């Protein structure tokens, strides 16, 4: 095939001045590597966000008490939110799958001669629905245990590993701060949350148990919760549900029209998605900046190809004298430029892979994912740059008059 010979000719020509070829390629190498790395970072961030939303349990709201402002002093007052609100939301707002009350605390948990400081949370079974969290072994709370505030616990995977190791924790008694509780279940591992905290480092007890034994009962709000986590069914209108919950709570709290809410509803999935969008926009911008360096690299290629055509005018003349048509000369230089760009693109891809691999290995940045179509696109684009910026020098070469080229000094 003639194309093989043309490729060989191009490579021979590029090998004549290795340093120059490498420097020329550098623009393309950096451009391609930068574009791929930026897109990979964007894809990595996107995937992480998707994972976070998934671990959150889908379409989730957090309902908390609002800051109460009196005079100029602000305090995070949670008095107004309680278990009844959760029941109300679940019953009356259409599209809500479950509304789980949640009370948080922290303290030390002891089993035998091992101890572990962890999060101690008060919940009921709805929490597992909202979080889309399954048990690895054992059972959930019974309604009797929840109503009575029994000393039974469901532990996270991390706590199981730290306290029990290989032995079966079900039925064992552990000491939770100041009282003993029996373990009835172990949760499946869930991994890190959006802030990088281990979600499995936790022990769950009935909400009443935690309130009575640890946080204490508030006289003004005896069924107080830290927050209510609400999950909606897939495909439900989140804005509508938010409005409905707001309306319901204002009504329940008897807030007059125009009065400030005493609660806050946050659509968490939306917040994460918004943050992801910001990251995406930023990455896209960087990718565009990187592609500018590709164009600059292309101009470098054009420059060197023009020099190369001038340097090799006599060779062009000779080739024409022995029968090369203008189109033969055009293809020769065009292929040389494409090889230069293609090779630069390939090296750029390799560097990008190395960079992303190292980044993932040592946990730099959000982690990158290189998609095959991005690689192919970059390679195709660098080839295109070769054609675009190589065409003018090649055309110039092909238009030389054989006699002038042959006599060129």
């Amino acid at each position, binding site marked *: 095939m003639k194309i093989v010979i043309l490729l060989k000719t191009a490579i021979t020509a590029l090998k004549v001045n290795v340093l120059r070829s490498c420097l020329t390629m550098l623009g393309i190498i950096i451009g391609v590597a930068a574009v791929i790395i930026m897109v990979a970072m964007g894809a990595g961030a996107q995937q992480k966000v998707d994972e976070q939303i998934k671990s959150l349990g889908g379409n989730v709201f957090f309902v908390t008490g609002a800051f109460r402002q009196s005079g100029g002093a602000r305090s995070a007052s949670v008095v107004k939110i309680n278990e009844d609100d959760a029941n109300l939301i679940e019953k009356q707002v259409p599209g809500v799958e479950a509304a789980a009350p949640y009370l948080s605390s922290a303290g030390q948990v002891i089993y035998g001669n091992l101890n572990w400081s962890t999060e101690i949370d008060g919940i009921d079974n709805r929490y597992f629905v909202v979080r889309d969290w399954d048990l690895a072994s054992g059972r959930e709370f019974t309604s009797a245990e929840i109503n009575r505030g029994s000393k039974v616990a469901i532990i996270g995977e991390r706590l199981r590993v730290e306290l029990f190791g290989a032995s079966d924790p079900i039925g064992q008694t552990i000491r939770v701060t100041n009282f003993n509780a029996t373990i009835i279940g172990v949760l499946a591992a869930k991994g890190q949350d959006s802030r990088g905290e281990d979600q499995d480092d936790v022990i769950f007890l009935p909400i009443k148990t935690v309130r009575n034994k640890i946080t204490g009962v508030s006289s003004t709000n005896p069924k107080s919760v830290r927050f209510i986590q609400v999950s909606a069914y897939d495909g439900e209108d989140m804005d509508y549900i938010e409005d409905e919950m707001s309306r319901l709570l204002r009504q329940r709290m008897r807030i007059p029209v125009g009065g400030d809410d005493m609660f806050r509803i946050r659509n968490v999935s939306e917040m994460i998605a918004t943050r992801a969008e910001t990251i995406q926009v930023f990455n896209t911008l960087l990718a565009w900046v990187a592609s500018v360096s590709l164009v600059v690299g292309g101009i470098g290629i054009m420059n060197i190809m023009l020099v190369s055509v001038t340097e090799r005018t*006599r060779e062009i003349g000779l080739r024409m004298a022995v029968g090369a048509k203008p189109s*033969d000369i055009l293809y020769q230089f065009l292929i040389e430029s494409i090889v230069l760009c293609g090779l630069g693109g390939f090296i750029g891809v390799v560097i990008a892979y190395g960079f992303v691999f190292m980044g993932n290995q040592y946990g730099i940045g959000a982690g990158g994912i290189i998609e095959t179509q991005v690689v192919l696109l970059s390679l195709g684009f660098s080839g295109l740059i070769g054609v675009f910026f190589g065409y003018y020098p090649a055309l110039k070469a092909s238009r030389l008059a054989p006699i002038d080229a042959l006599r060129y000094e």
Partner: protein
Amino acid sequence: MTQPLLKVRQAKKVYAMGDEQVWALKGVDLDIQQGEFVAIMGSSGSGKSTMMNLLGCLDIASEGSIAFAGQELSSLTKNELASVRNQRIGFVFQQFNLLPRTSALGNVTLPLLYSNVPESDWASRAKQCLENVGLGSRMDHHPGQLSGGQQQRVAIARALINDPLMILADEPTGALDTQTGLEVMALFQQLNQQGKTIILVTHEPDIAQFAKRKLTFRDGELINDERNNNVRQAALENTL
């Protein structure tokens, strides 16, 4: 009488030098038959190089006509002229004009790249040509590893690869010493005996003596066209 290989009628060539027009050829009439060995002589600026460029299809006459093997050159496109150079003409230059980083074999193969010869035949044809010029043992050598005479023989092998009707040699001995020059001229005479038309451009009367016919140019005109009755035999002199 058979049709001449080259039939030149009132060929003129004008170059623009700034605002001025310079007539490099002022109307030349010339016939060259198949199988001739012609030397074109003249001092620099005489028009001999211009004549060679026109005969070699490297350039087009401004006026007049040149027919090569019955074909009017001025009517051909660039691609057709390239094809004529490729198929019908072999060039030999003073400075050899070999590709420096390519083997002798690769250099000889070069014209085939632009021909329709199937690639499977390239190596065997190029080897045959190199053996014909006595370089069968140096096919893989690069020009830098060959002497001047050997380089010029590689160039001659390259000129022969497509079995052309005519070989155009522009000062082929200009860069060689007397001895190697004789060897090259012996090769040309041998090729001429085998039937190749050879046109030799030179300003050295000694070298022109190897040709059977001498054309002399001056100021863009053909002023003398004579048969050489005293042809030097390079092969004979070489053995002495």
